């Protein structure tokens, strides 16, 4: 599961209002290479919730990978180094085993073999 996915997921249990961002607990994570495509990164950047992404990156131990505050979108065009880090954080870090934890209820959504299980139980719908 990549951090791009993590950025989009939330806990939608009935009644939960503060289900985002999910806390990332990674037991096993790897780095997988993905083709670098600057256009894609630029188009995806506005849809990313920056604090959640930074939190996830920190949870994996890469504290210095991304700046705390979201940079100006113009950085995407001029700062190639930032673009590379963004690419690495968003697409190359891959959580194989672990869990996503809801901040409000503590419900764990397991991640196994890289695939998060977001299915809700019968009493959560």
């Amino acid at each position: 599961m990549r951090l791009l996915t993590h950025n989009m997921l939330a806990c939608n249990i009935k009644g939960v209002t503060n289900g985002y961002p999910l806390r990332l607990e990674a037991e096993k994570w790897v780095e997988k290479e993905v083709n670098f495509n600057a256009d894609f990164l630029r188009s995806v950047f506005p849809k990313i919730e920056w604090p959640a992404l930074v939190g996830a990156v920190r949870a994996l131990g890469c504290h210095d990978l991304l700046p705390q505050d979201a940079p100006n979108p113009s950085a995407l065009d001029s700062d190639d180094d930032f673009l590379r880090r963004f690419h690495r954080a968003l697409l190359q870090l891959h959580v194989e085993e672990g869990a996503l934890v809801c901040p409000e209820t503590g419900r764990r959504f397991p991640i196994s073999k890289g695939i998060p299980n977001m299915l809700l139980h019968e009493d959560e719908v």
Partner: protein
Amino acid sequence: MWFLCVFFHRLLDYRRPEVESLAELFGAFEPMKDGSPVRPRSLEWNLPQNHHIDSPFHFVNLPSEDVARNIARRRGTQPGRGSCLGRFLIKESYLGRIGWRTQIPSAESKGKEIGREEFDKDNELQSHFQESVAMENDKDWSKIEAKVESSTTSSKNCIFKEGDRVEYVGTMHSSGLPFTAQRGLYYGFGGKVILTFEDNRSSKIGVRFDKQIVEGNDLGGICEGFCTADLLHLDCFGLDDSARIAINELVEVVIEEAEKKGGGNSQARKTRVLFYSFHRDDIPAESVMHKFLLLRNSRCFLFTGMLVKGIYELWGEGTTDDDLEKAIKGFPDERKLPYLKPESSFRIIVDNFGKVISFQEQNERIRGLSYIPFKGRVDLRNPDHKFWLMEIDDYGENNGLPPVVERRIFFGREVGAADRKLLPTYQLKSRKYIGPTAMDAEIAFLMANQGLARPGKLIYDPFVGTGSILVAAAHFGAMTMGADIDIRVVRDGRGPDCNVWSNFEQYGLPKPLSLMRSDNNLPPWRSGLKEVFDAIICDPPYGVRAGGRKSGGRKLLKGTVDPYTVPEEKRFDHIPSTAAYSLAECVNDLLELAARMLVMGGRLVFFFPVLREDVVTVAQFPEHPCFTLIASCEQILSLRYSRYLLTMVKTGHYTEEISELARKKHSDFRENHLKWMEEGNLHSAVFSSSDSQTTKALFDRDSKPKYRGKYV
């Protein structure tokens, strides 16, 4: 400009929409201005006189021959990127030197050396280069040995003058990434010579680069004495093209082959090979070269259409040979003569739709065209221009082909023609991991074309299953994401080497960015997330052979809405039970998801099944205020039912009101779960015992002609 477009006789409804999608991809329509309302565009079509719409011959109005060629040949890049064709990967270690080298297949493949090209320019500049090229062949790539040919272009004999445009080709960081790690100038930067000192190669030259130098010696954009002449070379972009290079297609060795052999180690990965193809009269070699360098880390993808057999510039048509002669003679000379020159080679192909004609007859027909002043020489293997004499004649009724009223002949020059080589590679029978509902390769490519899959775009499939649709989208370079409610299909597959990931590995395609288990009925997206995907392409469960599921549990099946609670101690490993998912609710959820998550102008492509005994009009198809339906293509599956591939474009924003309505509808579905299950149940309608009454009625009312079947 009007062209004759000849289709394969397959998937008849899908043919025109596919060409329209390809036209959109190749820039046939003017680019949308920001802020203008998103309105789907379509092409103008016409049929030959008296022809039925199922005929293979159509006329289409396209803006230029280039677009027509791209659509027909189905190769191209995103408009604006320049016309580079084929896959590009560059030999890393060689780029450190001046110029570049190519690694090309050896003499096993028929080699043809193109002689040295030298050209004199007005400003006394000389540069020369040589290329060895090989013709494309169909051999197994892994057997081809590489032979290193040096192909360098340098400024050795260059006399730079003030004002010349140059490009930096100097040393590069061995990490192979041209855009980073190099302080100062980036490889591929262009600039203008502003000061010349001497004219030997290690002399220094003052160059003003176009872009600001980052992280380096920023001298305000001016590099006086920074660059030595041997690190620059001339950029021939703007110059008049005087180099005409023969058509070459270099064979491609897939980097993945190297990776597989090398076990994925970095050494193998560094062995990237440069392949390119460019066409005579199109692009001068030097400008192609620059484009390679810029495209280093990305691949150019082949957009492939499936159903167009060829697109032709029509020189004449008629009912009889005399009519045809008159028409061709009447065709303006200035359009004909450029292709009849003595220096060029040509070939005439005789094609008869629905009938086979003997070799002698074909030759007779060709001889009958002697009134056309062909001056060039005949080359059957690789001619410069191909001409087609096509005929459609009365072949008798009911042999499975559309009815023909009268004989018609067409004569045209081929602008681009089919290459269905893609299909055999991707056929399901050779795919590692398939399931009962895996999408047929041809249709998956059609869907990907309809969804305008291309590099830089994000495509989502909420019913991903074995990933067959995403494979097609990934082939065209798009990033993909998928979800499914059945975790076994997505995560486990049938083993470590037989799952969704191995399908992508099999074809050397980039794997999906993410796969997850989620329920489309209750998606796990954070609130506020919207307009993320560029296209949603999927095949929802119809409930006929494979039923859909949604979360909610067993109680819902009995009509009880209140679910039960899972005891605390059993929660950890609990596998939630799922409830049946009616088609109506499934499609409704899909439209809602798409309305929210698609960007404006994004496409939703999905299959919608219908019972054939219902008279199907557009009114039967699902609707949503955010969407405009632009294509519906029928595919007959059985006597009882068929499915329509619907292509919708998002033309309206997902507003608060729409969101509110959606919530209400969602509750309605939940409250009346049983009722929807019965009403929206296609399964029973399809598999119910056949009533002779209704079947007879079906035959009588069957307006679709008999030759239309599953693949036609």
